């Protein structure tokens, strides 16, 4: 059916499907295009230039493929629905014709989740980007999922609110993508991850049914099935609206930073802060390598591990949080470095340059985020760093901790290097990933904190969730018996065709 039929995940990942100019005529049935056109007038494209564009997301290895002239996949067409009814009709058509559907936000996902590996229809949600309502009394905003993150936050700021969800990708990601991947922002320690912010959802199931929950704070009416869509990565249907928590824009901000002898003392300081029920919005601990990378100008940071803290909200509360955090950090041996490092972080936190600078030089790198309880946190950090370093070809292996809970922490690891002699780029890349995933599971961590499963983590999911995998597969086949929704991702099934 599709231009490049990738029969299974392993196949696509081993031979890096190559885009072939001489086979560029679309074989996708013109009748399907006509039917889609009648559903979404002027909102369908099967132009080659669009199909090539929607062939990838921001999975780092695909950047290398772009330079090599390889495409991971090609969709047959792209549609841009403008309302939930159109989404319903598109899914009904796809369900009837058994055509793969890949929901698409802004393509900033880093695990290959939006790559249309089996072709089909990419449903780009960008035209559904309206803010439907702000409920000031209930502190909620109802929004369509295609809205860009920064545009949503700017809109809220202008009205005197914040959502407190500020991922590094805020400039280039959408609400729908956040929900589908259980995203986390840099201010998550105070405001939570995106799933903590969701009050209600509207979504379209593969058979076209629209489900919608009520915007009430809590409900004891059985399992909230709409929550299946959080982290579903487009496998269960398409989210068409969400109601989310918002907050009055903070009146005060306070910033602190400390240099610690090692990561472990810094972790201990933050654990104790959390234990006191104090939630700074931003908490970040950098290991020695990353401290050298980001705070080379900070006096007293050399050969140390930096901790930065940013508190925000009500003036009096911020003052109190500041005092408690400062006292706790000093108690754990932290040396105060003032607020300048935090300002530096604020100014540079969106400078995403590494992919652009290092990929053309033949380097392969990626970031991997995992979560772990406090009990196992020190060991997990140590084990993962060592495991990365052991893989031949790795040059950089570093980490920071960036999302904290009274129960534990998210570590964000970075690796970079070049494939050893005679090793294919993807083989090297996968070896480092395997080393990280394996170590994480050994240390009782969860293999993903907020990037999701996509393609790269799919083979590890069963090890992560065990018997729940069977349950997930049953739910998936009940909701989507023809497996049209984003096939080949997350819950990998034995293939049809």
């Amino acid at each position, binding site marked *: 059916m599709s231009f490049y039929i990738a029969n299974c995940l392993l196949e696509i990942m081993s031979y890096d499907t190559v885009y072939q100019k001489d086979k560029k005529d679309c074989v996708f049935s013109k009748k399907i295009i006509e039917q889609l056109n009648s559903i979404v007038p002027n909102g369908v494209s099967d132009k080659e230039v669009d199909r090539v564009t929607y062939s990838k997301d921001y999975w780092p290895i695909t950047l290398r493929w772009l330079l090599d002239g390889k495409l991971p996949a090609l969709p047959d067409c792209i549609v841009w629905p403008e309302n939930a009814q159109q989404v319903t009709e598109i899914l009904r058509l796809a369900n009837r014709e058994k055509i793969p559907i890949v929901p698409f936000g802004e393509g900033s996902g880093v695990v290959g989740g939006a790559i249309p590996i089996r072709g089909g229809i990419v449903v780009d949600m960008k035209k559904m980007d309206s803010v439907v309502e702000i409920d000031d009394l209930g502190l909620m905003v109802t929004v369509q999922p295609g809205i860009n993150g920064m545009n949503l936050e700017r809109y809220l700021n202008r009205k005197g609110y914040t959502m407190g969800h500020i991922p590094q990708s805020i400039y280039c990601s959408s609400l729908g993508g956040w929900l589908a991947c259980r995203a986390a922002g840099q201010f998550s320690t105070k405001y939570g991850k995106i799933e903590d912010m969701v009050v209600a959802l509207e979504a379209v199931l593969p058979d076209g049914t629209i489900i919608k929950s009520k915007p009430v704070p809590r409900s004891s009416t059985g399992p909230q099935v709409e929550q299946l869509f959080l982290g579903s990565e487009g496998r269960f249907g398409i989210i068409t609206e969400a109601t989310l928590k918002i907050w009055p824009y903070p009146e005060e901000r306070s910033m602190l930073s400390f240099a610690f002898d090692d990561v472990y003392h810094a972790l201990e300081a933050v654990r104790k802060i959390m234990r006191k029920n104090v939630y700074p919005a931003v908490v970040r601990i950098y290991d020695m390598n990353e401290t050298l990378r980001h705070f080379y*100008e900070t006096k007293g940071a050399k050969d140390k591990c930096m901790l930065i803290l940013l508190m925000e909200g009500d003036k009096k509360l911020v003052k109190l949080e500041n005092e408690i955090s400062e006292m706790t950090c000093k108690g754990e041996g932290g040396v105060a470095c003032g607020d300048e490092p935090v300002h530096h972080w604020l100014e540079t936190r969106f400078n*995403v340059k590494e992919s652009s600078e290092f990929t053309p030089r033949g380097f392969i790198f990626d970031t991997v985020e995992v979560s772990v309880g406090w009990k196992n946190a020190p060991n997990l950090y140590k084990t993962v760093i060592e495991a990365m370093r052991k893989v031949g070809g790795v040059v950089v292996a570093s980490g920071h901790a960036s999302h904290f809970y009274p129960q534990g922490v998210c570590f964000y690891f970075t690796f970079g290097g070049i494939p050893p002699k005679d090793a294919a780029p993807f083989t090297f890349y996968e070896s480092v990933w395997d080393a990280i995933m394996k170590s994480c599971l050994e240390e009782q961590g969860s293999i993903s904190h907020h990037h999701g499963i996509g393609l790269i983590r799919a083979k590890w999911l069963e090890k992560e969730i065990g018997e729940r995998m069977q349950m997930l597969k049953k739910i998936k086949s009940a909701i989507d018996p023809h497996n049209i929704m984003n096939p080949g991702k997350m819950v990998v099934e034995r293939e049809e065709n």
Partner: protein
Amino acid sequence: MKKIKKYAWVMDAFSQTPFSTKARAMKHFLTGKKSYLPKKKTHADMESVIKCALCPNMCRFDCPVLEAEKNEATSPSGKMRIAYLIETDRLDGTDAFELMYKCAGCDACIQWCPFDFSVSDILKGVRADIVADNRTPEDIVKIKEHLEKNHTMDKINIDVKGSEKGDILYFMGCTILSEKGEIAEAMIDIFNTVGEKYATIRDEWCCGAPLINLGFTEVFKHFAEHNVEKIKESGCKTVVCSCPTCAYMLRQVYSQMDFEIKAQVLHSSEYLLSLMKDKKIRFDHLEKECVYHDPCTLVRKLGIEEEPRKVLENIPGMIVKEPYFNRKDTKCCGRGGSLGSTNPDIAEKIAQKRVAELRKEAECIVTACPTCALAFEGCEVYDISEIFIKSLEKKNE
């Protein structure tokens, strides 16, 4: 020293790496880039094309074309990825080439880019390569051919003529010549009121911005030569432009391309403010509430944001409101970067959005660019010079 410190983490990582990896990494680091560059010589700065193509699209939220089109291909990095495939001969076809012209040239991208890239500047090189390869889309060629034949973007519809020589040369620009003659009339009234010895060019040619934008660098040179000669003949000490793009071209681009203009080049807002400072002019009360729209080229290319505000604020009775997105955060009118000519539908969508934004503040829009004024037609919209002269007219009644 700062640069060494900046990359100390890389050196530190290398120091802990086995020699064989280190040697191979170093080889890749020094030579890797070349393997991804096209073999042929390009007008496009390919290193910038690649860097932009590999970015996660950090400026996308502020790109007016993407906002209007909602198509990944029209996003800044989306265009660069296709540009890379074109430049490396992996992709061709009209759709791909036409995509390269979907940019409003507003430079909103620069503000969010860690490399300070202007997507429109990078695209100019890509378009020049498309021209060099004779693959230019037909509609784009027509624009060039029209300019070669008529020397202005559209038919001239005004008959405003100054002397051939004067201290000040008023360079009108294509939009004023064809569509916004009222701005020229206001400027001429102002010159007359203050007793300025002004000149205009009898056969003024386009400043050449559309030619540069669309990749016709060689044709542009004839236009620059003509205008430089005419400016010289006028004997002027100062060139005044109402159009920020003309001002930018004459002030910066001409000299970058070795076409020297000895006279000082001012945008009309700078000139009008200087009149106020010299106290050559006095205003009467003008009861008017307006919102000021910053033109992209004026604020981002020329860095002029205070002058038009000061002019308006100095007019007694004038209430000047600011839109939410103002100064360098302004939003494009849609017609920049020749988008009004190449993709009028997209330009119209962008304009509608900006108008809605501006009208939240006031019904009357004031700007300092004839192209923006044209984009906002249908609303009550004035160029800064029209407001200026209105205030004077009231005094003279």
